[in-house]
């Protein structure tokens, strides 16, 4: 049996230079390519440029130089044909003082593929009271509504900036489940967060931003092929990075013996930021 993997290039970023001030560049000659059928986890310290990269992809900010191509469009032109294929869930958002029905009537018709049944299903899953006015809902409930709305648009590119902020623990689990089921072959999901644990078992590729560029872009498979994450009693020379824990150390080592281990995103995040030069040759 042959499996044909049809990888659709969805986003091309070429030599992107961007910054809010000319003297303080956020990205220097950044290049990136993202494909359909993946859930990307965008990680980085505060101020590393996670939200700014997402805004560049959505055409909400303009780069100083370089090219951004999303689904064959230049996002800065803000053409409806592209906008209807992008679902952008911002960290801070606004909902008008109306009920869900009115909100839906006003906004859903812009998206040709909007799936009303799916939206209703998601609201049920998130346990949202449909008769309540949006403005009277809690921050978490509002967030669930815009997530449900965004997913129901059936957009090809789903961009989420800190989507789990404001969600309670059961809702975070629901969110992970829903996002995993939302991924299709022709859809690309990018989730930015600083709460790396929220992305556990959800993302298939990690993108890490640091020092004006991409510090790491690798699939979970590739990472666990090249690195192993395990608990050790003592530190030795083979360990690239370790953090003290109650029973010893949580360590990252080169995976010389093809050991199977579970990716610890938080540990990897800290490891890359601390020992960037040691990891670079492994993933180049």
């Amino acid at each position, binding site marked *: 049996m042959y499996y044909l993997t049809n990888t659709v290039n969805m986003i091309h970023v070429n030599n992107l230079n961007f910054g809010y001030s000319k003297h303080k560049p956020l990205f220097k000659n950044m290049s990136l390519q993202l494909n359909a059928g993946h859930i990307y986890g965008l990680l980085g310290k505060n101020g590393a440029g996670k939200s700014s990269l997402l*805004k560049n992809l*959505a*055409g*909400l*900010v*303009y780069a100083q130089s370089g090219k951004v191509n999303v689904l064959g469009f230049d996002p800065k032109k*803000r*053409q*409806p*044909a592209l*906008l*209807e294929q*992008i679902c*952008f869930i*911002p960290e*801070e*958002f*606004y909902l*008008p*003082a*109306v009920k869900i029905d*009115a*909100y839906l*009537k*006003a*906004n859903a*018709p*812009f*998206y040709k593929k909007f799936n009303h049944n799916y939206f209703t299903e998601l609201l049920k899953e998130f346990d949202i009271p449909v008769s309540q006015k949006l403005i009277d809902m809690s921050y978490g409930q509002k967030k669930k509504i815009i997530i449900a709305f965004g997913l129901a648009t059936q957009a090809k590119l789903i961009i989420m900036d800190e989507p789990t902020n404001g969600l309670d623990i059961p809702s975070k689990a629901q969110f992970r489940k829903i996002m995993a089921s939302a991924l299709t072959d022709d859809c690309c999901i990018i989730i930015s967060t600083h709460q790396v644990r929220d992305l556990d078992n959800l993302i298939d590729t990690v993108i890490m931003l640091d020092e004006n560029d991409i510090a790491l872009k690798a699939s979970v498979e590739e990472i666990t092929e090249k690195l192993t994450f395990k608990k050790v009693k003592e530190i030795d020379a083979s360990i690239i990075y370790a953090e003290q824990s109650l029973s010893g150390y949580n360590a990252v080592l080169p995976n010389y013996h093809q050991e199977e281990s579970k990716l610890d995103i938080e540990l990897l995040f800290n490891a890359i930021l601390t020992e960037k030069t040691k990891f670079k040759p492994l993933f180049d």
Partner: protein
Amino acid sequence: MNNTFNINRFGLLLKRQWLDFGKVYLGTLIILTGILVVAYWIFMPSTDNIMLNIRKSPELSFRYLVFTFLGFFFISIVASSYFINLGKKADSIVELMIPASIFEKFVSGVFYTSILSTSSFLLVFYLVDLAFVTFFNGQISHMIDSNLALKPAETIVNEVSNDTQYLNYFKYNLISPFTVTSIFLLGSIYFKRFHYIKTAIVVILFTVLWVSLTFYFMNLMIADTVWIGNQYWHNDSHIFLIFSLVALVVTIAFWITTYIRLKEKEV
């Protein structure tokens, strides 16, 4: 589907904008109606003081002042609140990501602020005026029956349409609501906070500067001189025509600037 303008998408956008902007607009319209009613209530002449020997309609000239001031105030308030969402980060992302073209978003702004606000003001003013004039005429009808010299009051629409001079002023000022709304629409996207006050201050400063400079330079050029050219500029309607054309150019310039500002808006 056309990425610049599509009539279905534009219709959807107008409906969507109504959800948010409609409340501001209707609220302002209700307040305007209230102020109009109060103004008429206060300034309408008392039927006790009607001069029975006059051979003309009762004097209702206060209406022109009320019409001008309230009209410009209303349309400028509406225009200065249209793009305020773009000054707030959370709201602006939602607005910019709505799948409609920049041109459609701009035209929707012009529709609500110039066309809808102006026409609704004219309608509300006409209805209030009609109601008060009808009531007033009802009150003086017995005097008209007994004194043929007294004529009933006319609605403002009748008064203007039956007077050539008024009609001329009206014709040459047709562009002015568009000029005012174009300035305040630009102010609503240019400033992040206190849109109305900031725009009003800029308009006042610019007007004072422009009038002073014009007066100064005209004085320099024509003081102690005698006009020996043709009489073209001695005709009021030619001067009004030039003013209208300048206002048209200014309006278009402000609209183009607003469009560019919307196009270049970043979050």
